[in-house]
């Protein structure tokens, strides 16, 4: 092992000097530095056919490409947002085959033959989906970045209640769930809004739900 003069510890990693480390046992021997590996060959790519907002799309994607990045970077549907890329915020929520998912934690190649609905497929500025209109009316957003995910989730949540899928706040999980603000809050909890529009979002969803039932 090479040792730079006068320093100490290992050539491969973090050189510890000073007595700062109470946790000397925990100090990495070579943690900070990634081991180099042989140069990669061209990364594998595969064809995928997806229906996005009713339109067929044929893509060839790196196997590593997430559904989120396929939408944003390949199809330029940037309404679906990347907030964390790790399933921790919900900004990337889209509806696949009728179900909402985090598009950041799904590979595009896993969606061959699937039907995807994004925020762009729900409505346009000139012709808003009732949920979008309700968000505008109730100011259910501020910076707008979590908003497409909130709206896609909200649309799917109403379907989930209708389909009888239980939630954490059910008093009796065997019973059919009913629409309530508690149900909405629990079911929408996978969509974080740091601007804190929650109270307004719940009102928007309540209004949109009423409209749908009417």
């Amino acid at each position, binding site marked *: 092992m090479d040792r730079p003069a006068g320093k100490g510890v290992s050539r491969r990693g973090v050189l510890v000097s000073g007595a700062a480390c109470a946790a000397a046992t925990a100090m990495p021997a070579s943690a900070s530095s990634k081991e180099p590996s042989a140069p990669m060959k061209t990364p594998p790519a595969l064809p995928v056919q997806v229906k996005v907002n009713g339109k067929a799309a044929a893509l060839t994607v790196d196997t590593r490409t997430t559904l989120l990045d396929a939408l944003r970077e390949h199809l330029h549907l940037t309404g679906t947002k990347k907030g964390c890329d790790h399933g921790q915020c919900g900004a990337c929520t889209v509806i696949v085959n009728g179900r909402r998912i985090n598009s950041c934690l799904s590979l595009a190649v896993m969606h061959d033959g699937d039907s995807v609905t994004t925020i762009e497929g729900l409505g346009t500025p000139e012709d808003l989906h009732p949920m979008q209109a309700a968000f505008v009316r109730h100011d259910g957003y501020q910076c707008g970045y979590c908003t497409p995910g909130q709206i896609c989730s909200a649309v799917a949540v109403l379907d989930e209640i209708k389909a009888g899928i239980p939630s*954490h706040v059910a008093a009796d999980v065997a019973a059919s769930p009913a629409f309530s603000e508690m149900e909405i809050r629990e079911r929408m909890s996978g969509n974080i809004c740091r601007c804190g529009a929650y109270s307004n979002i719940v009102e928007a969803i309540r209004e949109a739900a009423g409209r749908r039932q009417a």
Partner: protein
Amino acid sequence: MKAFEYTRASSPADAAALAAKTPGARFIAGGTNLLDLMKLEIETPTHLIDVNKLALDRIEETSDGGLRIGALVRNTDLAADKRVRRDYAVLTRAIVAGASGQLRNKATTAGNLLQRTRCPYFYDPNQPCNKRKPGSGCAAIGGFSRQLAVIGTSKACIATYPGDMAIAMRLLDATVETVKPDGSTRKIAIADFHRLPGDTPHLDNTLQTGELITAVTLPKPLGGKHFYHKVRDRASYAFALVSVAAVVQKDGTGRVAFGGMAHKPWRVEAAEAALPKGAAATAKIAFAGATPTHDNAFKLQLAERTLAAVLHEARG
């Protein structure tokens, strides 16, 4: 994320065989944990075998009155199944207490059993972690360990198993069914499925290379009242500090398993005999020999009080 080849499996046995003969291969189903970890290069498979199209997505009744849950049954569908809601409410409650609606729509029964710890040092590739990189050390010991294990720990690892569903399955004495690369199958009692860290914390469970989970079976229903009480800092979309899964019968007997306490779902059958005597008596046995850190010692008191709340509700 390292580059990887991608193959869609055609049958469970083929998937297992392919996995066994392909170095660096991993199965992918929901992907909600694996892809998260691959993005950070905590997991670095060179080949992903997509098992999503395998016909393992049904819930069937077994001949002995239980349920056989296909490995690919999504969390949402398992929680929503009428039989599960009626006879195994603790399982539905555990599932809907976890993650978010979006994640439960993707996450599968098998994948959920395999989810890895949320220890923040495991999640940061710059830090030593014996689970991520055997022999590198454990930064969590002496570090920020509020979420981590209080019992069953080792000098190498104090990680917690983060899931909810498996806690209920442990309570219900579920069995994990698998197929091995040679096409043979085996059944693993859930109690033997997850491991304690010992000096090999990189191994979360007892699956062998290439072995694929095909189903989880539940024995016939237990009756009684079902509880899954999950305690966390925020009201939803958070991992448990402590969770209590319990089935309590009219006479006060029952079963209890704990989440958030250990490297595996924590159930001590001997402690269950004390349930009629109350939470303190039960917890005393269940957590004998606990080794909490300064940050997470509160979990012992919390687990006992949460159990007390469950037993209170069971009586009411």
